């Protein structure tokens, strides 16, 4: 039985009077690629940010392996070092080269020596296919390249799982492919991932498990085959039909 890396129990989050996450619970197992889909603005990104506490959940508990990370006096920086996060807007450190971006985590957070940190950074940059751009600054890289560096940055911390918050939504269409390719390889290499995305192709072919969220709640959960073919809820079916409509028109 595969080990549970992440467990989320009854998460609630409100902004002011509006409740954005209304009691979400799920588990992620080791090496699993979990994809969260659903209409925009339904709390998917917020959910991700509540997991590594970039936003604080109002209610509910989260466990990373067997440590409850929502406990009040926990060292959140240690926890965040074990959870990778890839932002929609990349958020690379603008004053650092690609190499520095990737190795600053190991050097300053894990307090590794420069040699060791550089070795790790080079390896991760090679893994995402950017070994020839290590001395470039973010402003000199395309969107797709920046996002790949940010994935390398997350990987360099050797995290237990990586959270992807709509990683391709801010990219020009022709640049999406290179990022998805990296993510597909990671999934193949059994990296534990939670991905919030609108890329249905990725979801259907790479996900081990799909969560459909709407209006702050999980409506469906299951492997791609089951969800796409036999959605339980009318809402899910409606969502898919709209997507396939778009896909169909694109195909034309």
């Amino acid at each position, binding site marked *: 039985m595969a080990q549970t890396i992440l467990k989320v129990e009854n998460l609630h989050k409100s902004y002011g009077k509006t409740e954005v996450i209304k009691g979400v619970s799920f588990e992620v197992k080791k090496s699993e690629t979990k994809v969260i889909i659903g209409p925009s603005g339904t709390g998917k990104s917020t959910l991700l940010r509540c997991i*590594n506490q*970039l936003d604080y959940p109002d209610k509910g508990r989260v466990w990373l392996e067997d440590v409850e990370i929502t406990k009040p006096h926990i060292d959140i*920086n*240690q*926890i*965040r*070092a*074990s*959870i*990778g*996060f890839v*932002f929609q*807007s*990349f*958020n*690379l*450190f*603008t*004053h650092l080269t690609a190499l520095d971006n990737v190795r*600053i*985590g190991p050097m*300053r*957070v894990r307090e590794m020596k420069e040699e060791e940190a550089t070795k790790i950074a080079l390896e991760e940059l090679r893994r995402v296919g950017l070994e020839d751009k290590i001395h470039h*600054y*973010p*402003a*000199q890289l395309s969107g797709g390249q920046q996002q790949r560096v*940010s994935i390398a*940055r*997350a990987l360099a*911390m050797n995290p237990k799982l990586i959270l992807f918050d709509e990683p391709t939504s801010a990219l020009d269409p022709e640049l999406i492919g290179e990022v998805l390719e990296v993510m597909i390889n990671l999934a193949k290499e059994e990296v534990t991932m939670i991905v919030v995305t609108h890329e249905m192709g990725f979801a259907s072919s790479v996900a081990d498990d799909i969560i459909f969220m709407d209006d702050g709640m999980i409506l469906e959960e299951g492997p791609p085959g089951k969800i796409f073919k036999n959605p339980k809820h009318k809402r899910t079916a409606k969502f898919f039909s709209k997507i396939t409509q778009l896909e169909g028109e694109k195909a034309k």
Partner: protein
Amino acid sequence: MGSLISIELALAFLGLGFVVGIPLAVGEVYGNKLVKNLVVLPIVEFFRSIPALVLLFLFYFGASSLNLSLSPFIAALLAMGFRSAAYQSQIFRGAIKSIDVGQMQAARSIGMSKFKAIRYIILPQALRISIPGWSNEYACVLKDTSLVYALGITELMRQGRYIVARTFGNAILVYVICALIYFIIVHFGVKLLDFLEEKYKIPGYEIKKVTTRV
């Protein structure tokens, strides 16, 4: 010569201002409401609303009323240094605020504490962005060193006075030369700072120029 003293004074004031100004700015942007409103803002407002000359006298005479004997130089250093800190904190504050909020989030997301994030990610960028505004502050501080004349310190202006008095010289010539010297020092300093700005520029990243008169 008096001009060397003036430069020394300026550097001393700016230095103290820098050392105090950065914590003030960080406190204003990242501190909790208590720190911000009870400590930082009153200090900044106090030193910005009062004329430099009054501040100089305040520190100089204040010391003696507390039975501390402060040399004019130290009194001036404290008065003008803290004043520069107040102004510099606003420059840094503007620069820090102009940095995209995603930078801090990314830093926290790899496990950096707030302190580490400020030190390794925010400040390096903020300092680069501050250079134009700081160059303005340099010019102001250098010109304001002339005011320590009032405390009897022998800087450029007082030297000029001595020269006029001793040689019964052409007062206007002497003072115009003083003005010229100031102008040159300011000009070179600004050019130097411009050069530094170019040198430490982040390739490809346009630094927005923020020019505020202090």
